């Protein structure tokens, strides 16, 4: 469609595991980094390599991302590594939807829908921002120079897609960033 400013793509089901526990524990840090094959993220950040990554969700929660066919093996690996410690690992893949928004105007599109500061000075590659998109909770991170990846609950995925498509109409370009 030529009247759309950015390319909005609803991704195929992706592997997501919620890992809760003491993020300062070396056992948990090792289990997470071994499972995802990336370094441990700092507060408010995410680390990706290829299709796997770790995102900092809260002081006691990480989101482990991986290809959909690796969920069970990753989950088993985490559970084995943290056996007998206090933690929770849950496959939340089916509860989530993922979108990519591609094009030089992705910041303009997001800024119409979220109160989060998406200015290039504040939001850059590596940042993981949990916020809201219009009326629903989402999280997003910049996955390449002109792409932002966004996750939300699957139950509101159609709503989110509608929001993005509407905010992405070429004639509504705010052209601020």
């Amino acid at each position, binding site marked *: 469609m030529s009247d759309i400013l950015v390319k909005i793509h609803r991704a195929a089901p992706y592997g997501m595991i919620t890992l809760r526990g003491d993020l300062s524990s070396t056992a948990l840090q090792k289990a997470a980094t071994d499972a995802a094959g990336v370094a441990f993220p700092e507060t408010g950040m995410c680390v990706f390599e290829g299709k796997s990554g770790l995102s900092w*969700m*809260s*002081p006691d929660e990480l989101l482990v991302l991986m290809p959909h066919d690796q969920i069970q093996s990753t989950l088993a690996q985490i559970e084995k590594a943290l056996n007998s410690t206090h933690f929770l690992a849950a496959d939340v893949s089916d509860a989530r939807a993922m979108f990519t928004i591609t094009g030089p105007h992705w910041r303009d599109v997001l800024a119409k829908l979220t*109160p989060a500061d998406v200015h290039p000075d504040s939001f850059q590659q590596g940042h993981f921002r*949990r*916020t809201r998109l219009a009326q629903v909770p989402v999280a997003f991170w910049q996955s390449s120079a002109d792409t932002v990846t966004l996750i939300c609950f699957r139950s509101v995925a159609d709503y989110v897609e509608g929001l993005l498509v509407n905010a992405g109409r070429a004639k509504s370009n705010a052209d601020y960033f």
Partner: protein
Amino acid sequence: MLILTCPYCGVAADETELTPGGEAHLTRETVGADDAAFEGYLFKRENPKGVHFERWRHAYGCGKWFHAARCTVTLEVFGTYPAQTTEPPKDIRDKITAKRPGWSWRDFG
């Protein structure tokens, strides 16, 4: 517009990303409290024009409860601090004293 920085994740969160939790530092009275203490816990609230201490939850973010010190007149935010304290920390109180000499709020000031 009110912007509070969550002390847990460092995000400068807009008011609409937060859930208000009312007045901060209330003592939860329980079994053994007399009627006056219980009435205070249930009903007596500060409603200041000026310095105020509140609880907020980073609902559209990390999900944690935290405290905020702000001015109800100007919306100036003096600071935010974690929930694991029963009174405003000294550095926050000092910051308020520097900006609002003579302030008072409940037993503080």
